[in-house]
């Protein structure tokens, strides 16, 4: 019989296993965060104060960045959730060429954000853009799509949505596959009289509740951190006039271009607060899993 390791030894081994990652997280995440705060409080620049937030609130650029970020969150995240789920569900239901469909919808995730943004930007270019080429074929007027703010914003939103969709799709596909392995529950629903639509509503959707919150969280983080895509899509100098001018971009602009550390640090903290909020709300909304049954062993 093998001897069991004492609990303390086990805990020590666990800590030892966690240590390398802990060092990396502290070194590359927490240390820069604290450093930011110190920069804000440093002597070379105006000290970081609470009224930095008041200054930030008065800054029209910040308000615009916040508004853009919220628009993107409200526009992209729910759409990504709904479309991602239905695509994953439809692909799981289709038997013919299922791997091909999966690959197609997974491509945005696999192809990399920068590449896909350039590709999407290419679609709306005035010269040789696929959109205008298509319009030409139909004999319609071609336009400088990326110079029309509404069209450019819509195209950017679609780009972000497609990029986020890959991730939500793959998470939903994985969960739906595990559900389909539990065929018995669907058989039970069918024999209880539930149609396919009722099975989706009463069996699949409730079982995916946790997954919905996870996808919501992931998508929210993705949208709040949008930067590269905006930088590339709007050719850097046009960003501030469009939806791509997000909070992350505002932090970049105020820190690196305007060297206004005070505002940049305050904006970064607002952004971090939004992310923390985005993480806490879904976690609070998740109901605790019901306690597992443990048989009561009566003392002899």
């Amino acid at each position: 019989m093998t001897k069991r390791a004492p609990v303390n030894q086990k805990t020590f081994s666990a800590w030892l296993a966690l240590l390398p990652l802990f060092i990396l997280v502290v070194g590359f995440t927490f240390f820069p965060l604290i450093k930011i705060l110190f920069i804000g409080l440093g002597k070379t620049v105006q000290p970081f104060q609470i009224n930095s937030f008041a200054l930030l609130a008065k800054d029209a650029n910040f308000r615009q960045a916040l508004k853009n970020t919220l628009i993107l969150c409200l526009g992209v995240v729910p759409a990504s959730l709904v479309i991602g789920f239905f695509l994953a569900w439809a692909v799981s239901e289709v038997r013919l060429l299922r791997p091909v469909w999966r690959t197609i919808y997974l491509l945005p995730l696999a192809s990399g954000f920068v590449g896909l943004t350039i590709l999407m930007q290419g679609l709306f270019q005035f010269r040789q853009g696929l959109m205008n080429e298509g319009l030409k074929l139909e004999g319609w007027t071609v336009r400088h799509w990326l110079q029309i703010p509404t069209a450019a914003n819509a195209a950017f939103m679609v780009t972000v949505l497609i990029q986020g969709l890959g991730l939500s799709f793959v998470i939903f596909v994985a969960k739906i596959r595990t559900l389909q392995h539990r065929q018995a529950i669907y058989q039970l629903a069918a024999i209880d009289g539930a149609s396919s639509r009722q099975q989706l509503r009463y069996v699949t959707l409730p079982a995916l509740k946790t997954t919905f919150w996870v996808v919501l969280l992931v998508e929210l983080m993705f949208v709040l951190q949008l930067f590269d895509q905006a930088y590339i899509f709007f050719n850097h100098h046009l960003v501030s006039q469009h939806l791509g001018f997000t909070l992350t971009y505002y932090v970049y602009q105020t820190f690196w271009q305007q060297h206004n550390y005070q505002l940049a640090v305050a904006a970064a903290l607002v952004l971090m607060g939004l992310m923390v909020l985005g993480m806490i709300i879904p976690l609070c909304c998740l109901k605790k899993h019901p306690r597992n049954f443990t048989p009561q062993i009566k003392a002899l």
Partner: protein
Amino acid sequence: MEITFKHVDWAPNRQPAILKDVNFTIPDGKLVVFLGSRHSGINAVINLIAGFIRPNQGEIRFDQQTINLQPPQARNIGFLSSEVSLYPQLNVFDNIAFPLKVLKIKKGDRQKRVRTWAQLVNVEKLLKRYPASLSPQQKCRVALARALVKKPDLLLLAAPLKAVLPTERSELQQLILHLQASLGITTIWTTADQDEALQSADLIAIMHHGKIQQLATPEELYHNPQKLFVARFLGHPPINVLPASLIEPAVKKYLSQDIYRHAEFVAIRPEAITLEPPDDYVAHIKAEIKRIDNFGISSAAYIQFQEQELVSSAISDYFKQADQLTDLYFAAQGTYFFDPQGQRIAGGQL
């Protein structure tokens, strides 16, 4: 509802057949147990009746109506399985109410029926609990209420007591039998447990290799097995099987010699081996009782007969002494002769 299978074959995709030419009729209101191992085809029978799979050949009828292509939703069946019987994300109340909800029964009526059934299966105090927090026995009770709440025409029970603790099985079994008898609902029950089958069934269908070996009442199956497989399958301790040639010299002369020409095996129920000659016996042998086990009310004797070991069971203290050569008799009631294909040719009531 009467259930009929006519020449039903079923095989999963590109795999050997699971059911081969299955024929039976289950009369309305009866409780029929399909008894067999996991791979005998009992699950396929349940799945075909439920509509989860469709037969490759043959016909399945509910009250003379062919239902081969009917989806499970249209069959009005109550279903209880040991595998999954409840929806994990719904509490007990919603689980029982689920079939009524999908049938769009009004909320008031739904609540009334759920509470009635919860009371009948004794789970009215668990209505707010979730399946993960229930014991297997409680889950089974809730699943039973869920299966019956929509007033089905047929109840399918796929190894319903498998997950339940042995000490709690009897109580649940009585509950199922009581509800089945009160409702008069045709019930099909699958199990690998012969005690469960013998205690519950109006009729038992013993399945092996995708075929029904025999469909009869429990008494008929025990006392008149048509096949060696059936004789071997039922009984504790199991029936003794010997090569027929071994007891030929010991067989009473009045039995037809013709039987022995065709008989390959002789099977003797343990209680049919006696120390005193019964009124009607088939054979008389001399053998050595090697060991006697007393179980309080009953006892078992392990007998060495030539190269074979036989088991005899009787009331306690019936066998007095071990390790000595004893005269033993095989009572006609409980001794059967089978041909090389395992088909009964003599013994019992042909």
